[in-house]
């Protein structure tokens, strides 16, 4: 078996070790003898037809400026993938740009690609610190958030999780992230996947099941270190 991962803008969008997420998927595949190919998407290049997982991280303002135009160019392809249930994980900056718009502090509206029904407005303080959320399917997830944008979910949109510690989407309604089909947008850096192996395996299992058109059950791995790191992180102060 083999999976092809599309990594969006690894150079421009990688704060807080977000590429550790791609590494987590890669290793957990390799440890089960599943081959992995990583396609690094840079501005100006095309999107292949046979992608199984899409990943994109957070960036700083200058990084986001460099990818904006390209993101709109590849948006129709990304939409098609996500409508067809391709698993996708976008963090922080790309989570915001997968939404309808991001309004900056000086009132400028940056259009997103409208895959997720969310909107984000610049806030006047940064939400920084350890964050713990709860998700019905994956249990407690732990990460680190650092954002000033305040995200609101549109009507009938499912949040990714409920905030237990931290700010989440906007520091008010206790929602964190957003899920549409198999596309998850979230503010959790950390990176999120290594310490939350259940979520990592969800992406792998869903991708394989979809690709090979048959229910795939993943081989169990020894997750002792993952779970201990998870337990330590959950117990740390904000």
């Amino acid at each position, binding site marked *: 078996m083999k999976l092809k991962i599309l990594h969006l803008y690894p150079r421009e969008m990688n*704060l807080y070790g977000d590429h*550790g997420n791609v590494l987590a998927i890669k290793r957990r595949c390799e440890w089960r003898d599943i081959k992995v190919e990583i396609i690094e998407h840079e501005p100006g290049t095309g999107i292949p037809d046979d992608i199984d997982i899409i990943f994109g991280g957070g960036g700083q303002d200058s990084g986001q400026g460099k990818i904006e135009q390209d993101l709109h160019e590849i948006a129709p392809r990304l939409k098609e993938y996500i409508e067809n249930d391709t698993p996708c994980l976008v963090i922080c900056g790309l989570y915001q740009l997968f939404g309808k718009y991001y309004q900056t502090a000086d009132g400028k509206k940056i259009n997103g690609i409208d895959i997720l029904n969310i909107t984000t407005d610049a806030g006047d303080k*940064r939400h920084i610190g350890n964050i713990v959320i709860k998700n019905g399917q994956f249990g407690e997830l732990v990460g680190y958030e650092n954002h000033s944008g305040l995200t609101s979910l549109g009507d009938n949109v499912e949040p990714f999780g409920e905030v237990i510690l931290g700010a989440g989407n906007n520091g008010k309604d206790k929602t964190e992230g957003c899920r549409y089909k198999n596309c998850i947008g979230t503010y959790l850096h950390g990176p999120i996947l290594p310490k939350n192996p259940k979520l990592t395996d969800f992406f792998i299992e869903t991708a394989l099941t979809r690709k090979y058109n048959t229910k795939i059950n993943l081989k169990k791995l020894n997750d002792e270190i993952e779970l201990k790191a998870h337990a330590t992180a959950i117990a740390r102060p904000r």
Partner: protein
Amino acid sequence: MEKLSILLGKSIRKVTKLRGGSGSALPGLIIERINPSFINQELSKLPHGVVVISGTNGKTTTTKIVSELLQKQGLKVFTNNTGSNFVRGVISAILEDIKLNGEFDYDIAVLELDEAHAVKFSEVAPIDYSLLLNVQRDQLDRFGEIDHTADLLQKIATATKKTTILNREDPRVGKIKATKTEYFGLSDKLIKKFPSDDDLISKQQTKSSNKPACIVFKDLHNNQATYIYDKKDYTVDLQLKGMYNAFNVAGALTLCHSVLPNVKMQRFFDDIEDIKSAFGRGESFQINGAEVELLLVKNPSAFQLSIASFADSDCDFMIAINDKIADGRDVSWLWNVDFSSLKNIKVVSGIRAYDMALRLKYDNIKTEVVIEDLEAAVRKFANSSSKHKRIFATYTAMLEIRKIISGKSIL
């Protein structure tokens, strides 16, 4: 007002010391409040002015190198080696040294200031020379983002009255504008070994910048470093450990040359051989007959360079990761370091030991044992087989380990 400030500041210092405090920040804090121009008054008296050294990595060692090189040329150097690199820390250090009659008997101040505090410093005191080393991801939870940090360095450069010395190879520092600039740099051969912050993420080979540099760090074999000055090679035997310290030397030499342009460069090159690493930056200890080196790792670039410099195969390693405020709460930076060349990891320790073990696991590196408690971990590590050991530690872990080792509680 000046004399009164001195008297008051010195008295507070004495009282806080008597009461068991370190006497470090409080007198500075109070004088900063009641006489804000005190620091400017005192530092403006210095005939050679004020040097500020800033950047993410290498400030402490570089400040030490510059201070010692200038001292060897006979200058009386005032420096903030109490480790308190806030404005009030500098004031406290002045209060400690100034005489009651206001005599402040120094030729030059060489100050280590982190980016944000250097900007605050520039608002209250003169800066004659600045040396800006690099902008790398550090404690992002403190400063936000690295482009913001680069803006802070630009402000320091703008406030610098004479010469600003810049690392031409750092994409953000190289772009900084100032009244007068001098550059230091790397040869094409070495640049591949110094990933910039951007390169850490996507490995891209770069060529060295074409800006003219005063000093170019050309090559390093063991601890023998070669530099180019005025088209000539100079080879020196360094006691300073590691490639990044050898590069900081290039910045320090460029700075010293700007401050004392009439001193022959050969003299600085001769003196550099005597200079040793600063506290926690490659200090060595003896435990059970083995040499243990303690190396501070506080961000991905420093960690990556330490691995590139020190990953000998006959060495045993311990890694200690804490996430206290001074370390940075966020440990995600560990994922921006490539550990795949490390072997013989005997112990992983610290509050975030399991995060470190996890990181290594995903580079397919085996950790022999995880012991969160630092003292137990150091004891275990002391008994490992190799005679040559290195400990990579974050800031607060380094302080604790140093105390454990120097307290000899493990022997």
